[in-house]
């Protein structure tokens, strides 16, 4: 009797345990792919650098389009599939598309060396680019292979940041110790010790910075600019009409955008068949679209140490949306005493084009690249 009683207690305990051992709760996953996998965006690469080798365009580390040698560009967009569309988090776009340029053979060289040229979303991060499905983007490789890496460092008194000074390829100065002799010396600026050089020059210039050295701001905290060539990425077009970055041609005509991507050409004038593309930074093709496309340092990638977007900026853009009807026209760009031409180019009615001035004025490598967006 006792035995049965306690077997009962035991059984009840075990039964209770079994009943109460409920399992973890969990909803049913719904992993249906609700986004069409037909997302794509248009990309186009122009190699505007005067000294870069032939480059290939990679999006998400897959190669697209043809190789572009120095001062030339791909003439048409390449539609590229995107795996995801324009992510955001709490309203801010987050980067998801990896963009880079690789040397078609060997390495890029210069400061970049054997690394790739990679797009970084900010001056102090290594984030990707945010591509929107249906968007169109022009990637322009600008600057010299030898643009120095901007340094954020401690100064000679042991603390603090120093400002990075823009480089010119070289300059001349008089030897102050023997003014009568006026011996001309030539120094190269742009090495990683340009700070020391600037200080040296200040010392021999009555404590003033020579006018050709322009402070361009503090190197951002955690700067990821590695120097050398860099990307200028232009968002040409988003699906949303108000975001149009390209001139819309008036009926029966074609439109041209001009981008001066030469770092040392100064203010230039671009003409199609002798008609100027209007220089300017705030040109509005319709007057209603508050379109602004300054070629300021904010558009550089990364922007550190780049030239500012002032009126004397060597990089400017302009538009004209009412060129003559379709036909074959000559393109010319006048930069000071030099003129570069690209003759007998075909323009179609309703077409949208970008003329890019590439190469270097001082190295005599100025060239024109023509891109058709539409």
């Amino acid at each position, binding site marked *: 009797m006792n035995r049965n009683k306690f077997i009962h207690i035991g059984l009840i305990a075990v039964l209770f345990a079994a009943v109460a051992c409920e399992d973890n709760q969990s909803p049913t996953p719904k992993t249906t792919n609700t986004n069409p996998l037909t997302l794509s965006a248009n990309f186009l690469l122009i190699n505007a650098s005067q000294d870069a080798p032939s480059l290939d365009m990679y999006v998400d580390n897959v190669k697209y389009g043809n190789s572009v040698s120095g001062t030339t560009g791909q003439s048409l967009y390449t539609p590229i599939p995107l795996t995801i569309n324009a992510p955001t988090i709490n309203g801010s776009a987050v980067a998801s598309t*990896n963009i880079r340029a690789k040397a078609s053979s060997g390495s890029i060289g210069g400061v970049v060396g054997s690394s790739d040229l990679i797009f970084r979303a900010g001056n*102090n991060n290594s984030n990707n680019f945010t591509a929107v499905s*249906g968007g169109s983007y022009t990637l322009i490789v600008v600057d010299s292979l030898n643009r120095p890496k901007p340094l954020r460092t401690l100064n000679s008194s042991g603390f603090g940041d120093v400002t990075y000074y823009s480089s010119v390829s070289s300059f001349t100065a008089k030897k102050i110790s023997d003014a009568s002799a006026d011996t001309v010396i030539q120094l190269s600026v742009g090495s990683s010790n340009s700070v020391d050089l600037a200080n040296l020059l200040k010392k021999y210039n009555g404590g003033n910075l020579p006018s050709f050295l322009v402070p361009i701001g503090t190197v951002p905290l955690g700067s990821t600019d590695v120097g050398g060539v860099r990307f200028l990425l232009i968002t040409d077009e988003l699906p949303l009409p108000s975001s149009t970055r390209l001139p819309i041609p008036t009926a029966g005509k074609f439109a041209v955008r001009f981008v001066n991507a030469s770092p040392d050409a100064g203010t230039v004038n671009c003409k199609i068949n002798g008609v100027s593309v209007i220089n300017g930074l705030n040109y509005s093709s319709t007057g209603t679209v508050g379109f602004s496309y300054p070629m300021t340092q904010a558009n550089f990638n990364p922007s550190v140490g780049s030239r500012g977007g002032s009126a004397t900026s060597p990089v400017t853009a302009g538009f004209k949306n009412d060129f003559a009807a379709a036909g074959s026209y000559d393109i010319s760009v006048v930069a000071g005493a030099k003129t570069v031409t690209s003759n007998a180019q075909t323009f179609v009615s309703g077409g949208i084009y970008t003329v890019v001035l590439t190469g270097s004025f001082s190295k005599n490598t100025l060239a024109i690249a023509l891109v058709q967006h539409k």
Partner: protein
Amino acid sequence: MRKHLLTTFAVLLMCLGAWAQGVTTASLSGKISDQKGEPLPGTNIVATHLPSGTTYGTTSLADGRYFIPGMRIGGPYTVKVSFIGYKEQAQENLSLELGQTLVLDFKLADETTQLQEVTVSAVKDPILNSDKMGASSNFNVNQIQRLPSIGRDFRDFTSLTPQAGGSSFSFGGRSNLYNNLTIDGATVNNVFGLNPLPAGQSNSTPFSLDAIQEVSVSLSPYDVRQGNFTGAGISAVTRSGNNEVQGSVYYFFRNESMAGSKVQGQSSPIPSFNYNNYGFRLGGPIIKNKLFFFVNAEFEKRTDPFYTNSVRPSKSTPIGSLYTQATDDNDPETGIAGLKSFLLNNSNLNYDPGVYKNFNRATESQRYVVRFDYNINQNNKLTLRGNITNAFQDQFPSGSGGFVSGPPGGRGNSVNVLSFSSSFYRINNNQYSVTAELNTTLRGGKMSNNLVIGYSAFRDFRQNAGGLAIPNFPMVDILGPNGQTMVTFGPDPFTPNNKLDQDVTQINDNFNIYLKNHQVTIGTANELYSFNNVFTQVINGVYRYNSLADFYADATATTTATARPSQYTTQYVAVQGGPSATAAKWSAATLGGFLQDEYTGIKNLKITGGVRVDVPIYLTDLPKNNYLNAIDLNGEKLRVGAWPTIRPLFSPRIGFNWDVKGDRSLQVRGGTGILTGRVPFVWLSNAVSNNGLFFGQFNSTNVPFDLTGDGLPYNFSGTPYALPKDAPASAYADLAKGMPPMITNPLDRNYGRPSIVPAVNTIAKDFKFPQVWRSSLAVDKQLPYGIVGTLEFIYTKDINAVFLRDANLAPATATLNGDGRPLYGAVPGNANLDRAILSNDRRINGDIGQALVLDNTNKGYQWSITAQLSKTFDKNFQVSAAYTYTDAREINPQNGSTAGGIFSSQASLLGANNPGLSYANTLTPHRVIAYGTYRKEYAKNFASTVGLTYEGRSGNNFSYLYSGDPNSDGVSADLIYIPRSQDEIALTTSGATDTRTIAQVWQQLDNYIKQDDYLNSHRGEYAKRSGAISPWVNRLSLSFLQDFYVDVKGHRNTIQLSANLINVLNLFDSGSGLIQNPIRSNLLRFVGYEQPHVAGVATNSIDPSTGSAWAPTKGRPVYAFDLNGSTPLTSSFAPDTSVNGRWQLQLGVRYIF
């Protein structure tokens, strides 16, 4: 023969454990009968504890039964039974174990009877003779001396309990904060619960092993006298003095050369350290047979280097692992030395930031125990015990920002970060405890009484490292060229004013009446708690500068407003009276009473039934926050400053012990009942201090705060910011009226409305202390070859588990696309700055960030089954082995040093307010424990002792989480979905420098999942909280004691050399015995939400359906599977390379007399 059997019997019980009845003493009971089995009432029973001459006497009751409670543990005892007309019988060499009721029946022979042998039933049944009902384990002084232990920590022995968890002092899968620790019956538990043990924060132990006679771990007591825990009750009893003067002097040491220098064959030296432990114990008589003393003092010191990365002295020194900020051109030593010079010499500051190299970390403890045992007479025994533990440890500055994010790169010590010594702090844990216990036998053994009065005081406080005063100076973090913290100075933001006083007073009494077939116990158990906790985080302010130049400019340019920190954060006292007025100063008590009957009227069966009632009461009125309490949160009103309703908590219990065959060869035991424990009081205290009244917070990132209301630029100041002297009275909280401070921005002197409260803590009206329903069933059986086998099943169901929820978290608004889990709203901008509630906001009210409610749930259970085999060859040779399978589930982790900490770290799928039932984070599913000791005396003067322990167990469990917060519930601990194929997950590259194609990223993720047993077998499911388990852990440890002894006049003098070798397997193979930890449990990084593709609509800036940019979207979550450094993550686990994972040796020398 009889003596031998008795010895065996006594020793075996140590291994088996016993029913922990009292927690400081043992008991003897039994039945006296004549040769025919007829009960003999009125028999005299006298038990004598031979070492101390302490005698205990009683007479048998009408049914022949006798009962002697309150006996000293240990032995040997002699029990004599005499009755006129019968031959006197004696039992010798008995030993009593903590909490044990030893059953000793006597059959007396008529003086005229001529028997060949006088038999005592206890001798016949040596194996299973015990009153044990529930699960428990005992570890006595011999095991403590003989088994390996490196830290001289009692947890090395409690972890030999089969049901113990892997490493965290948890038992049966329950949180370690739900245990109760007593010394000599007095609560010395860290009831506040910042750490499971007192002195735990300073890495110390609450008492010396040399002061301890025995430790017991009680898991399922059906004795209602035991209470205040829902995990395990751990009772330690200190040693007592005896008639002989006995003592010991000892010294133990170890250093880095006595630990493994390789991990998996790779050289990986341990930074130099030094550990010393020395002390003595002494016990003896003050009055022989009457009054005894015992004293113990122990000192423990450990020194470790704080800096493992020294400063790179000059530009020419190779970078290596030295502290440097990223660029090659840096000369950190110059910069850091220049900073120190600036701080010292600037006339406004004159601040000494301390040193930045050659700085050691001190860990020290002093432990003292004094005990007196007074045999007032045969019926009254008094014990007095006092102990003191003073412990401290120097700590790295916290990397936390308090109510904002901490600085990038933290504040520890790395190749990036260097902190001046003034930023390191010392945590002090002091403990003072006294207890008095009086055991009384009344009316010739028909009644007895046990009275315990205890008082424990815990004083935890902080200093600067090295025991220095905390300067009244803000903390400053200066970032270096790479954007990580370069240097930090000023005191740790959580250290000023930080203190915790705990006082626990305890009065317990129980009264026993011994009737025919019944033992009735009635009693009371009461604890009074007082707390005084001051915690003023970020009270001195924390400045963050982007460069040294920015700091210098801000500290020197008093007229310009251009130089300023990139972030300034401060918490200011918003009540009159300064920091001490913000103390969580409160008292509570639990009043308890119990009634129990132990019934022995059925042959071979003992049943106890009883009920205990505990009434938690709160003795302090708290200030209300009427402003917050008026807010309606979807129908719920907050109860800031209100205690829960007082209500009694009943714990009925029933237990049994059935001697199946009547010969103690097979025993079935168990029971069922409710246990009521304490809630870690810090969770309640959070509601006392986080009431939105005491403090205001101010945080500014790069926004102009250079001008205060008086038009003066606000510059760096060595004097911490506080409310301006001319602040109106309304800028302070009115505690009497429950009005919060009317101040939105103190720097701009913007008065008139309370600032947003980032977090407020409250307690639900019907919150109840934790209760569980625990049942157990066990079979003990004598097996062949003298082996005793035990099979024990324990099942625990939570009745009131603690459940935390955020009352200000709005319900989910959508479903996460391509995933299926609920998606919560977002918070626009800064939740602590922006009051406006927008559509699709996850907050219900914008005046509060988080409104935590401490509530209950009845979900959660634990069960375990244990198989144990023990064999005792003789008193010098014992072995035991056990296997335990445990399952434990809970709603949210029941451990954490704050309520907010638990809430914000609990992994969930459905959202932070619905964590769901899953595996307990303290669960160790499989565990094998084996241990044994062997001692051999030889050649007259020598003895060698070997002790071995083996632990094989499942590794620690963990959760596979996303890094980030894809379900947008505000808690970044979301369980991952384990994809079956690439089209189930939207992946992206890790960043611009990532050279992988999306297909390659998936391939690497897929390969990772394939090699991970947990993930691969759960594809297509959500990962479960604490569902993944680290690899099996094997730990074999060895102790060796070599004694050289001389017996002088019967008194033994011994020199003992000892070696404790922990993790023997690792000594022979640096790849064995390692603890493997997950390399990356936050497997996938949440990048953002994909926007749904709508032709002709740009979707990367605004959601066209709402026109709002910030709304969470309908798109799929996008994840990155980051590289592990520069290579793919290809394996789940990596070994713990700290000293804890390697072999360690500790040597010692001891003189025993």
